[in-house]
């Protein structure tokens, strides 16, 4: 019995290790974005579409749009894709992709196979723009208003429910704000 307590350290360690292992796979749902109601950070990056020409904030739509962080390695992104495709077909809202820590070839192949819902794909292969955006990993989704301010952030996969209950209400509200401002 006396020697059992010597096993205490190894047991404590084992419990801790299990938690850490779980921690690695948790949805990296983290603290609310510091960027809400701030301007979208500037960037000057390649895109999958425009060849050598670098894209900047100027190239983004001047209406409310969705900014989606994705990667070909990212399984949840595959789940989101049909939803975004449907949104594109119905012309609900422009969706800009940020191809995050990926390679161009893999990204293009992924879009060929699964369909491309994005009006533009910004290439952030180093993840540097992701740092500016406070991204922890793909997928993450931002909703940006017509003035280029980030208004909403969703961390993790967007399923139909999240799309209907979270994303679309914000998008519709921003779109109506934009119409009021424009008229």
């Amino acid at each position, binding site marked *: 019995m006396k*020697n059992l307590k*010597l*096993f205490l*350290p*190894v047991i404590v*360690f*084992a419990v*801790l*290790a299990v*938690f*850490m*292992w*779980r*921690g*690695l*796979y*948790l*949805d*990296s*749902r*983290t*603290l609310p974005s510091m960027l809400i109601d701030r301007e979208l950070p*500037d960037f*000057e990056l390649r895109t999958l579409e425009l060849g050598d020409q670098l894209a900047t904030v100027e190239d983004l739509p001047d209406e409310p749009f969705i900014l989606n962080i994705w990667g070909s390695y990212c399984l949840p992104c595959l789940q989101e894709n049909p939803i975004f495709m449907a949104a594109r077909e119905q012309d609900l809202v422009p969706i800009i992709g940020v191809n995050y820590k990926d390679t161009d070839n893999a990204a293009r192949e992924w879009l060929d196979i699964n369909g491309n819902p994005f009006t533009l794909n910004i290439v952030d292969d*180093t993840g*540097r723009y992701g740092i500016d955006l406070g991204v*922890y*990993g793909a997928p993450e989704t931002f909703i940006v208003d017509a003035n280029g301010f980030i208004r909403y952030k969703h961390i993790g996969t967007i399923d139909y429910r999240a799309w209907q209950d979270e994303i679309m209400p914000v998008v519709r509200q921003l779109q109506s704000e934009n119409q009021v401002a424009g008229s």
Partner: protein
Amino acid sequence: MIPELGNFALILAFCLSIVLGTLPIIGAARDNTLWMSLARPLTAGVFVFLSISLVILGYSFVTDDFSVQFVANHSNTNLPLQYKITAVWGGHEGSFLFWTWMLGGWMLAVAIFSKSVPEEFIARVLGVMGLICVGYTLFMLATSNPFDRVLPLPPADGADLNAALQDFAFIVHPPSLYMGYVGFSVVFAFAVAALLSGRLDAAWARWCRPWANAAWAILTLGLSLGSWWAYYELGWGGWWAWDPVENPPLITWLLGAAMIHSLAATEKRGVFKSWTVLLAIMAFASSLLGTFITRSGLLTSVHAFATDPTRGVYILGFLGLIVGGSLLLYAIRAPILKSEFGFGNWSREVFLLANNLILVVASAAILLGTLYPMVYQAVSGGDLISVGPPYFNTIFVPLMGILVVLLGIGPVARWKRTSREYLRQQLTRVAIAAVVLGVAIPVLLTMSVPLGTIGVCVLALWIMFSMLRDVASKVANKPSLMAGLKSLPVSYWGMQLAHFGFVMTMAGACLTSIYSIERSVLLQAGQQADLGRYTFVFEGTRPVQGPNYIADEGTIRVLREGEFLRTLHPQKQLYTASNTPATHMGIDGRFLRDLFVTLGDPRDNGAWSMTLYVKPFVRWIWLGTIFIAFGGILAVTDKRYRRYKVSKQAAADEQPAEARLAGEH
């Protein structure tokens, strides 16, 4: 071609580590002298190939070989040469190679400087370190190879080194931090070797102590440099943030501090043996945990290198194997490590035990605070909370307070048994003097009753007086003061110096928290702002061109009570290659206070936002750590660690005979 040679050298180092991690250990178990004698040459081989690898990575940086992915991501043609070299440890892959090379360096040092240790024991120590090296090199080759290429189309220019890392402190902070961190693997290897061989005695503790002291002293410097760098480079006026990546080194430091104290008791009195071994394992485990946290993306933080679960899984697997394995070994083998001497109620052993208890509780509390968000998230299924400085301060500050109270008594107490009368006779006057002066000085200086300051002063004076008292009573019987001071061993001075530094750091930290003031202002050229006794006059800005950045440099004249003191030049920089802004503080550092100005952003009307700080005593924090580290190094140089040329048999028989003499230090 050249980078492939680096990769090849890395693979060779991996292969040699496998041999090093197996043959000598098996040889030691089977008493095969040939296999055991392989340990030293293999160690040298591992070190040589790791060095080649590291030099080649450095060469790729210096020659701007952007076909190497790691170079392309962390360097740039315009980067000044010294930062091209230090960019080697400016990112995950390179810093891990650097880290592994440090391990190789420690291994080589053990091979060279442990001639007096029996061959069989050294074979085990180097073998265990070889196993650790296998893990590190495999990790690099499998998940984060610094020599990976971007082919066939390498970028024309690199992405540049993170602007905050282009700084002198970054040249020295990671090397010293890593060196200290990795140094704990030496002590770990000694502990595991002791468990394997079943021999843990005073001789073992004496072999182990210099390594533990050295690693801990260097870690102290590394932590301190990191804190200093954060202070003057990041521009938030703080020096410690309880960031999830700052905490693991602090945990290692606290456990290391506990370990070197418990090693002292093991060496002098043959007590706390299995506890010392456990501390050695825990200190090393915490250093691996630090690696895991920084490099796996488990916790998000400003320091985090990369968020890649494969790396996390790998490190966790390695952690499980090495730490889980050694803790299991500990559970099975610890019963043979019996402590043979008892000790009385007021002996030094008791105070060392109290010291250990406090340090271990403090590190456990920090670990809990660091990992709690993750555990909570795992249990609650997604909600995230953050544990902030209030939690850490509430726990850490009182614990350190108790530690400091005991620190006044411990060194005065004697080994084995101390009579209460002796302690009373030694310390009563010291306590009275500390309380009287500690209350009087702050009250007279401020003409009020600042309770926090009084507490700090009383505690600091308590330590200072008790130190002086201890030195005085130790030289009392000697013919002259000088002869007395000379007769005290070097390690005694090391201890006193480190304790003095610790008190200085604590006092600095407390006082600067109490007295720091800051103010954010918006100033146009010619305008001024007051803060405390100082007036800051903004003279405007001018453009400045650096090697790889452009900047606006502000000129701020500082007046103290109307008299000109000096001019500060904070900068707002823009690193052109990566288009990242950075700030350069204007700091006037003095022994008793720092003035600190950060330049914010310009406004349309020509005004600049800026933050002014007056931070009294902040420098003491880092000065204190220099004393701590120097004390630790001084203790390593004590002659007695080299005096004993023990043969295998004699060492095995040796008992802590000098324990009786040890009452004097």
